[in-house]
């Protein structure tokens, strides 16, 4: 984050941003599969909640 705040222009900002994002992706990819599945199942639960709340709004 500190690095991002020090970026002098757009090019430098996106370079730092992409490097940091790739670093985070690599860290997440190394998680145990069970932990990844727990994260995935949370995403699925959130998506289901969102779907049912939009369906309720549409019915109103």
């Amino acid at each position, binding site marked *: 984050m500190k690095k991002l705040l020090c970026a002098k222009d757009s090019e430098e900002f996106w370079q730092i941003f992409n490097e940091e994002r790739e670093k985070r992706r690599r860290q997440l990819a190394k998680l145990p599969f069970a932990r990844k599945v727990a994260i*995935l199942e949370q995403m699925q639960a959130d998506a289901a909640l969102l779907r049912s709340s939009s369906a309720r709004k549409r019915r109103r």
Partner: protein
Amino acid sequence: MALVGVLEVLNGLKRKGVIRDYAIGGGYAANYYLEPSYTYDLDILVFLDSDADYHALYKHFRDKGNKIENVYIAIDGTPVQFLPSYISPLFTDAIKRARRITVGGTHSKVVRVEHLIALFLVSFRPKDKIRILELLPLADKHLLDEILKRFEDEKTPLRQRLRRVLANL
């Protein structure tokens, strides 16, 4: 974890002889190799000899009272799609050579990264192309080439599709 519940059901079907073997494919397999990302359903490559066995599998779940919607069977709340091996020799090979894994203490198998790339080259949707690019650095290039050569045909030119994905980088 819902996935563990599904795998226990599948292991039970294997013990009973309803299916010969299976392996996790699709988005869940991509999650095994990459960072967690959203996927709706669980694709299971299932080793079956004929469409009669496939019907028997669906009947088994219907008789058990599982909800069947479209191509999905709900198992432990998870929509599961079964991809039978008899429709494609690539599926058979992917199951046979799948990696043995343990999830939450339950044994299972996940397709190798090289087979997963080949399977995504078959389905070839925009999101599959992105996953292919992400999985490629993890693949053994010789094994991937061998798999693509063995299982491509005129309708699904796997190596040509891979070149197209790489050309659009």
